[in-house]
């Protein structure tokens, strides 16, 4: 754990060691490093859990759903309504992609809340990949739908003519900043929350008899982290839908 006392009794708070990538199976091929890490392991666990849970839930095919099936149905319907309400019926074509993103991120976030597990989404390498894939997909969809007219997206027609070039620059910058904020939001939220938990946990040992005070804090923060885990997955999904809406309908 984080707060292990050093040899001279000094407290060492090491909140970042939980994010360390460890090689489980070494497969360094020289040119590329394909080692199977704990990050990869937990990605597989998250995917397997999702597949099994959703599979088992809907395997009954009953008209009157069981508890598990109704849970899966509520989840499916919630995401579908979110896509339709935000981006219209055209966006339903891309619903499987958004549902996959949502479920995968949610599974990774919640799996990270299990003690001693690894939070896959706390690493920027993972979140930047997810956000870049969304960015490229959405941009390609925009160009496929509107052709070269998609560039008009950056030219604010409602603004006064003098202001348009300046606003155009701002629009382009904010468009290019999307994958950055999209990915960093998820990664930083997951990382910061887990680091705070570890720092508070280290205080428990340091305070001795009064250690119960930080424990109360840890309990509260853990509850908050569950909220953050679900909320960040939701925010990632809904921002994807918002970007998709921009590409489909251009403002």
């Amino acid at each position: 754990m984080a707060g292990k006392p050093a040899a001279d009794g000094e407290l060492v708070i090491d909140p970042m060691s939980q994010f360390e990538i460890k090689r489980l199976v070494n497969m360094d091929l020289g040119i590329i490093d394909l080692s199977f890490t704990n990050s990869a392991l937990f990605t597989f666990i998250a995917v397997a859990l999702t597949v099994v849970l959703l599979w088992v839930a809907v395997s009954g095919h009953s008209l009157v759903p069981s508890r598990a099936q109704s849970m899966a149905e509520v989840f499916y319907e919630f995401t579908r309504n979110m896509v339709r309400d935000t981006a219209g019926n055209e966006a339903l074509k891309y619903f499987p992609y958004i549902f996959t993103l949502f479920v995968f991120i949610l599974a990774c976030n919640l799996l990270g809340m299990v003690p001693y597990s690894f939070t896959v989404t706390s690493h920027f390498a993972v979140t930047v990949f997810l956000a870049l894939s969304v960015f490229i997909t959405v941009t390609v969809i925009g160009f496929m739908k509107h052709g070269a007219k998609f560039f008009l997206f950056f030219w604010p027609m409602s603004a006064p003519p003098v202001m348009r070039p300046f606003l155009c620059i701002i629009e382009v910058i904010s468009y290019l900043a999307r994958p950055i904020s999209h990915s960093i939001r998820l990664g930083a939220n997951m990382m910061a929350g887990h680091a705070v938990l570890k720092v508070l946990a280290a205080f428990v040992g340091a305070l001795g008899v009064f250690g119960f005070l930080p424990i109360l804090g840890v309990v509260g923060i853990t509850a908050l982290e569950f909220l953050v885990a679900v909320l960040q997955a939701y925010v990632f999904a809904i921002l994807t839908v918002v970007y998709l809406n921009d590409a489909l309908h251009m403002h």
Partner: protein
Amino acid sequence: MEGNIAEMGKYIGAGLAGIGMGAAGIGVGTIAGNFLAGALRNPAAAQGQTPTLFIGIAFAEALGIFAFLVALLLLFAV
């Protein structure tokens, strides 16, 4: 008294970047507070606007997270 000036500047800069997170907190609080004020006036319309609330919070929070990123870059990448 040891260490060099660049090292000191790094930590001071990272600390200053932390102020940005407080500013983001003000922004998120304003959004949530205004949403609540509006929702209490017209509870029937509140349900439909919840996604907008989260989008607004996410955008406000993104800027605070950029501050966090600056702090991280100063501490570990410079």
